[in-house]
């Protein structure tokens, strides 16, 4: 039943450009990239039990990597710059993970936030990275191979499909990983780290690997987001970015893969709606979040599912 709904959703998204206008194409593309970002965080939170408040660190790295790899008035090679950006995010995740994964619980939450802020302040203070105003990417990355250009990231419809492809690919990738030996191991860690240790699992390694995978995917989302906007600024590292994606995961339904997707759609559309109504839209947004936490402990997608217990069996079938 759920699979049918998901296929329907994917089909609807695939057909949307036939009816949607430019504004909505751009908006939905943004949402789908946020969905990638949110799914990566859910790997950490919902499946490994690591609540990170600094996931934007890797999002920002992916974004700034595109800027650094783009020549000033020319396009970066997509097939070169994207893997480099993702690798940079992954390396950063490994480096930060080695430090923060020594902590747990509240310390972990605080330490991850602090490290993301470190990047924020670095970017704000750095001339190379354009300081608080950020930087522009004048020409979008070019995916040309041997003269053939499979898609044009400057074209709104084509970028939409790239974003859709990224979202679907991330979903399928994570689904595969969660069903693998590794996936079962991290879910065991989430359920009881003590038990896993007693069984002989080198828990730290698995947490670090999950952290790195999540960082890589966040980097991808950041890279594509930078490509979409054509600009990057320190807010990509900001705590609001980390907070927003955290909300998407929790409100959408932590511990499932479709939950973050729902959360990305729901929260962004809500934000659009509220922005129409008032300049101070963060106020009703804050009220909404508080009410949601108090009234809907399992989030939208989690209705009927205890969020504490993702089954290590197939995630959504």
């Amino acid at each position, binding site marked *: 039943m759920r699979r049918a709904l998901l296929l329907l959703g994917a089909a609807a998204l695939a057909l949307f450009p036939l009816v949607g206008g430019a504004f909505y194409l751009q908006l939905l593309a943004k949402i789908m990239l946020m969905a990638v970002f949110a799914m990566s965080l859910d790997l950490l939170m919902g499946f490994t039990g690591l609540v990170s408040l600094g996931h934007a660190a890797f999002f920002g790295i992916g974004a700034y990597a595109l800027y650094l790899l783009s020549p000033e008035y020319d396009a970066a090679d997509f097939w070169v710059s994207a893997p480099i950006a993702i690798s940079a995010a992954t390396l950063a995740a490994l480096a930060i993970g080695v430090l923060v994964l020594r902590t747990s619980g509240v310390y972990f939450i605080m330490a991850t936030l602090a490290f993301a802020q470190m990047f924020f302040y670095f970017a704000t203070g750095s001339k190379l990275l354009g300081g608080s105003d950020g930087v522009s990417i004048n020409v979008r990355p070019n995916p040309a191979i041997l003269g053939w250009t499979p898609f044009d990231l400057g074209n709104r419809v084509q970028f939409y499909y790239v974003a859709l492809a990224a979202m679907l690919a991330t979903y399928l990738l994570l689904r595969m990983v969660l*069903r*693998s*030996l590794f996936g*079962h191991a991290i879910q065991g860690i989430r359920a009881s780290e003590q038990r*896993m240790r*007693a069984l*002989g699992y080198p828990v730290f390694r698995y947490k670090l690997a999950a952290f790195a995978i999540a960082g890589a995917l966040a980097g991808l989302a950041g890279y594509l987001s930078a490509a979409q906007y054509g600009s990057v600024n320190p807010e990509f590292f900001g705590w609001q970015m980390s907070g927003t994606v955290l909300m998407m995961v929790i409100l959408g339904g932590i511990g499932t893969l479709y939950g973050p997707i729902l959360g990305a759609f729901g929260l962004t559309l809500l934000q659009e709606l509220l922005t129409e109504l008032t300049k101070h839209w963060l106020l009703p947004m804050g009220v909404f979040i508080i009410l949601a936490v108090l009234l809907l402990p399992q989030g939208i997608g989690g209705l009927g599912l205890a969020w504490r*217990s993702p089954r290590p069996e197939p995630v959504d079938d």
Partner: protein
Amino acid sequence: MTEPVLRTETLSKRFGGLAAVSDVALDLRHGEVHAVIGPNGAGKTTLINLLSGDLAPSSGSILFEGREIAGLAADRIARLGIARSFQRTTIFRDFSAFENCRLAAQARLPTSMRFVRPALSQRAVSDAARRVLALVGLEAAAERRASALSHGEQRQLEIAMTLATKPKVLLLDEPLAGMGAEESRHIVALIAALAERHAVLLVEHDMDAVFSIARRLTVMVNGRVLESGTPEAIRESAAVQEAYLGGAEPQP
């Protein structure tokens, strides 16, 4: 006489000013149940935590098959072949009994850093899980959620999980706690059977069970070993009777 599989020498653990375990010398042989008994607070669980690596000793040594393992991390020690059960049931409550054992059996693979093939396709692991479930008598409950099992069944599951890792040594911390008579008998028979192929260290309060299956007993009081020996010797020891058994002889 075979060499002991597990041996401790002057093992001690201090928490600030409190000596939870002092100067404990203990050995464990393959094929036997060695029970550790003593009043609450005697340091029995601390002892198990030291042997399993959950706590690092303040001093002394622990030798497993002749190798020093004191201070090694818990997961390292578990991989060497020392499995433990916990006093408070520590199972994966929201997973099925089968998945609990499957995860335990998976731990024996050289590595779980495999991201592509589904875990369930690893037949050997799944088969091992079903085997240990059958061994403890839980095969009928395999698909039930662990939290839905009765207390006794959960304790059985915990033992099954320790078995799934194919250990050489079993450290069982009060496996009979909270069990009814019927369930206890079943578990006691299971432990006795397991002892044939493993070395079992059993911490228990149930004296009937202890005296029926233990080949040797160690009595601990206030973190120290009061006396160690065969069940008959312990039963007749005046010191033990005074300190622990309350002066009356327990029924065999």
